[in-house]
């Protein structure tokens, strides 16, 4: 690895030398070119794509071009949940592939991404909810994933903080838990992939914004940036949140709209909750970070925005629901709220595939579920950028599925992003 291997012995050496021996985790590369592949977007997905291009496909003349600092978009703003407990089979397969990668990621990258499979629990508040959860669990198991349908008693044992009383506004009938799901440290994933990709020769170019595309007829031959023109064999857009803007630089419209999603974190307290708690019918979720803060969120702001800020009413709603589920949350203090820009696709599922221009590809439309896919998305996108063919797991997510009528709609709410 570029900066020397990370391990306990190295830390011990550092303790003696005042930690002066550590080097940069990734170089501040200057744009060169031509590259075989340029990846636009230095978030988790873009960096992971670069890593797998180099590691699995042996393609090392790769540049990741990032307009700010890496991981500064949604990778640094999500609520860190990792799971694959979806209902639709193509989503199950893609997210499960990613989940399996998570399980070995720290060792693979020699960077502790703090992946903690502490369990992702969906709560059911009625018989109807429980039937829906059972259906989801059945579909997961039938597709080779892990799921357990649990009753009230086990939910109470797993999450003693929940209000199990019959008089609760949303009484808890049981839940569906994916024990292999959990949380990870979002910044660490970006940094870990960056360091690993850099050590394999990938150029990570920060503070470099793409302002246009270089074209030869119908072919994209590179990018125009604030740091000059850079040539590329293939160019992959990987800027979820800004997919519409960047695709627009190529004159392409997408079935994606950018909406704001807010989240909150409380002051750090001693352990209160081990599992990630979500609800089948409520739109709130929360978990506790390793630092001790409770992290949670709820519905998006339901109108297009790139502002990375929303309205306070959204926070109030998600917090009211969270407190109704876990009353002890009420006395904690929120220390920070923030927002990201979600790439809302028109069926709620990602878009991974070719664009109408030769040599230009897209990986976006991840709505509010992109973080968990970080390694899997990078892996399948690398396959596409390396071979020009879709990875089988990514094939269903091609752009023209909307025109064909092959949408993959997890929630079943159709094309309008605000109905998700």
């Amino acid at each position, binding site marked *: 690895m570029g900066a020397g291997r990370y391990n306990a012995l190295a830390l011990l050496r550092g303790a003696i030398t005042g930690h002066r021996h550590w080097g940069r985790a990734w170089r501040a590369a200057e744009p060169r070119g031509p590259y075989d592949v340029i990846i636009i977007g230095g978030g988790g997905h873009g960096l992971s794509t670069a890593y797998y291009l180099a590691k699995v496909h042996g393609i090392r003349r790769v540049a990741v071009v990032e307009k700010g600092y890496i991981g500064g978009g949604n990778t640094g703003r999500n609520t860190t949940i990792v799971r694959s407990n979806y209902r639709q089979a193509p989503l199950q397969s893609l997210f499960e592939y990613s989940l399996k990668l998570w399980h070995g990621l720290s060792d693979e990258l020699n960077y502790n991404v703090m992946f903690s499979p502490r369990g992702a629990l969906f709560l059911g508040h009625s018989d109807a909810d429980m039937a829906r959860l059972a259906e989801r669990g059945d579909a997961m198991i039938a597709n080779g994933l892990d799921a357990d349908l649990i009753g009230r008693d086990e939910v109470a044992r797993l999450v003693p903080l929940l209000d199990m009383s019959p008089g609760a506004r949303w009484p808890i009938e049981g839940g569906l838990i994916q024990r292999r799901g959990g949380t990870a440290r979002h910044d660490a994933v970006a940094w870990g992939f960056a360091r690993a990709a850099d050590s394999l020769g990938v150029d990570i170019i920060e503070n470099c914004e793409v302002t246009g595309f270089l074209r030869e007829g119908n072919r994209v031959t590179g990018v125009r940036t604030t740091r000059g023109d850079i040539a590329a064999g293939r160019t992959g857009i990987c800027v979820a949140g800004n997919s519409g803007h960047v695709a627009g630089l190529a004159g392409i419209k997408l079935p994606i709209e950018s909406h704001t999603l807010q989240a909150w974190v409380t002051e*750090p307290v001693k352990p209160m909750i081990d599992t990630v708690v979500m609800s089948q019918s409520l739109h709130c979720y929360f978990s506790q970070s390793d630092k001790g803060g409770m992290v949670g969120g709820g519905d998006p702001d339901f109108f297009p925005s790139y502002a990375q800020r929303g309205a306070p009413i959204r926070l109030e709603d998600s917090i009211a629901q969270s407190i109704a589920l876990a009353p002890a949350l009420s006395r904690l203090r929120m220390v920070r709220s923030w927002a990201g820009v979600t790439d809302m696709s028109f069926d709620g599922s990602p878009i991974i595939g070719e664009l109408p221009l030769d040599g230009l590809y897209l990986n976006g439309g991840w709505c509010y579920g992109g973080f968990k896919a970080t390694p899997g998305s990078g892996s399948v996108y690398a396959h596409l950028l390396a071979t020009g063919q879709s990875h089988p797991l990514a094939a269903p997510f091609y752009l023209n599925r909307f025109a064909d009528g092959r949408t993959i709609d997890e929630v079943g709410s159709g094309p309008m992003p605000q109905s998700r």
Partner: protein
Amino acid sequence: MRDGAGSIPFTFDGKAYAGQPGDTLAAALIANGVRLVARSFKLHRPRGIMGAGVEEPSALVTVGEGARAEPNARATDVFLYPGLVARSQNAWPSLAFDVGAVNSLAAALIPAGFYYKTFFGPPSRWMLYERFIRRAAGLGKPPQAPDPDHYGHRSAFCDVLVVGAGPAGLAAALTAVDAGKRVILIEQDAAPGGSLLRERVTIDGEPGVVWAANVADRIRAGGGRVLLRTTVSGYWDDNFLTAVERRVEPGQPAEGDAQVLWRVRAGEVVLATGTIERPLVFANNDLPGVMMAGAARALALRHGVAPGRRAVIATSHDEAYRTAFALADLGVEIVAILDSRTQASGPLVEAARARFDVHAGARPLRAIRRGIGLAGVDALIDGVKRRLLADCLAMSGGASPVLHLHRQAGGALEYDAARGGFLPGAGRQRHVSIGAAAGEHDLSAILTLARVVDPLGPGSPPAPGPLWHDEAPGKAFVDFQNDVTTLDLALAQREGYVSVEHTKRYTTLGMGTDQGKTGAMVALAQIADLRGVPLPDAGLTTFRPPYTPVTMGAFAGPMKGDHAAPIRRLPLAAAHDALGALWVPAGAWMRPRAYLAPDETLAQASLREARMVRASVGVVDVSSLAKFEIAGPDAMELVAAVCATPVAKLAIGRGRYTVMLREDGMVMDDGTLWRLAEDRWLITSSTGGAARMARHLTYVADVLLGHPRAAVVDVGEHWAGLALAGPQAAAVLSGLTGAEAPAHMGLSDAVIAGVPVRVLAASYSGERAFEVHVPGHLARAVFDALVGAARGLGGGVYGLDAMDHLRVEKGHVVIGAEADGRVTPADLGLGGVLRKTGGYVGWQALQRPALVEPVGRRHLVGLTSVDHTPIAEGAMLVMREGEPPLGHVTTAAPRVAQDGAIALGLLTDGTTRHGQIMLAWSPTRRSTVPVRVGPPLFYDAQGARYRD
């Protein structure tokens, strides 16, 4: 200034003390000689009190007991009340002897980001380490019990919102009130005055504190609202701000609301938010006894408390000199004033030189510890290292304007090189910064309309001097709460975490509960120096709400318990209660699920009720269904746009089943369509889709059809609906109305129990049935009449479960179950009901290649349990266990008219699989049931039961 014993009793770590009215917990603790108050987050270093308000990074304690305990309270931001119970946190077994202090010894092994470099292995191993990390992390213990406090929400509107009741804010608010504006003045302290609370100035002949109180009174008298103990926490779009008012102190029981969340829409916002003092960075600058100069001054002048016996002042600007005077007047020995500037002058400095030892070009190198607190300071004086003995070190690296709200509002920043910090620049919204927050430090300039007398004279403008140093053994802290030192910042730069955001996330700088209020600028200065760029080029992190931490309960406010979300009750709810209904939520509605007889299970009751309907007659409440009346010359055009079935040929007085599609061709809703008159229509549709349908109707009308001459009225909540179903239904109806029942799919007006009603002859159950619409407030009489008559013929009431069993036998789909948002009408076998001439919403999307293709879509099918074992709803449909599913069970039900179990399902290519035996497999419920696939119809295929 302080009476000896103090009149307000409180405890800290079990020991009893007393303080005075107006004391903060911090002031009272220091007055009682308690200097060790906390242990730091990571390294468990002993900590005391550093600040005087919300910027306090170190003195975090738990205040209150039991369910009222509030962890992580700043001792400087808690005002004393009788019986206050405070405890230290993050220390075991005791504050003085904390086992966690071993972290300090191992500090070299745990620099910033150490956890990214180790703890490898399988995730299960990481989770083992994690258990210890999580137990060590977190500052306070959270309460386990539900929150006994109540929180309110209030909205307010004003012409001018002034944030901060310091001198600038008070003057601005008074001016606005005198000009006739509606004014709200918000102040986070318990008293108005701001900086005046820690200075000895007179304004218009009164002590500053008195002047402030008087101005506040005048503002109130002029109609302004003054909110104390209220912090503006967020500045949102369009001059909308949220503020949190504390009506009681942490841990204190409240009679009404403990806190109120204010939502203020202001015409203009005046930010008089003052400044926060910057620390100096030197080795061991976190010891108990080291504090901000302004905080020491506040202790002395506001609370009459001496922070120590021998004090050193270390500063880079004039204002801290005032602390020397304030402390000296309380009898504290001023050992020295260390001024980092090589040339300091002005009346304030000269006055100090006359009385104290003032050293220019001097700075602290290292704070010396004895026991758990400060014993002395190694200082650089005249180029030589000298040790000064002191138990108090009051430091000041200048003052940073509080810019958080300005930045949240989208305001720009301007770098001021002289002060080494930022000033507010252009605002994006209608707001302005004034006073110290705008860089104005001279009180006379701020209060141009008042006569200010400062006995010490004005200081010269702040100059930062060198802000940070890393030159002596020992840890030099930049972020006190998260134990981030100069070495950590250097490490981050060395490892390439160069941008300020990366540095912050890698070292956790500024991510504590104080949100980096004290350390932000000094950290930025170091980062800039390490990168070799001017400070403004180092970048700035984003300011986010809340400005100070806000209790979660305050966000929820009154949306607590049952009020966390609305509950909708049917107009006949009381009648159902009287009949012993078992309720079930259906969206926000509560609907009767069944009416259990004694010793009956739910399953038994539902089956009994369903059988009752098939055998004689039943009454079910369908009031929650959506209903819309559309009237006008263009009503049919609107109906035809929304409904995908034929419309034009529907005769007056007749109805039909109809389906409404989404723009992408999927079934969005279904129901019935009735023609009441030439130009008047009634649509009924699903309960769950009511809001969506209401919106859809107006969208189609106004946006697609350009305001046709058609009025749409949502009559869903006007009409209660009662469905009467069964072979005896017509008899019951005629018996009550005295008229013949309408024919199947016909409608008529009638009178039941003296109440005018509308009767729609439609069947959901498969029996002869009538939907009776009656105004909700008159429904009871009609309900009682129907139920009474039904009972007379061996029938009665039935609930949602029975209704479901009946409709499954007839293969009727339910929106959300069979129509799951991913199926077309053709998938549900309804292709035949679509209007062939198109022109309805969704008709185009149905032409998409995958939707016109006959192969590979899921179709609605009926499933019959081969051996009568109940089918699990939601189960997967497979040929063999373990194979990828070909479909799933959407609704399961017992057969009503005979024994057995059936279900509806969605199955790939289902129409080609009739007759096949598959498995309804539910591994989560350990259920595998063989089922025969067939058409979705199990009862009365000819429809003979409900036709005349």
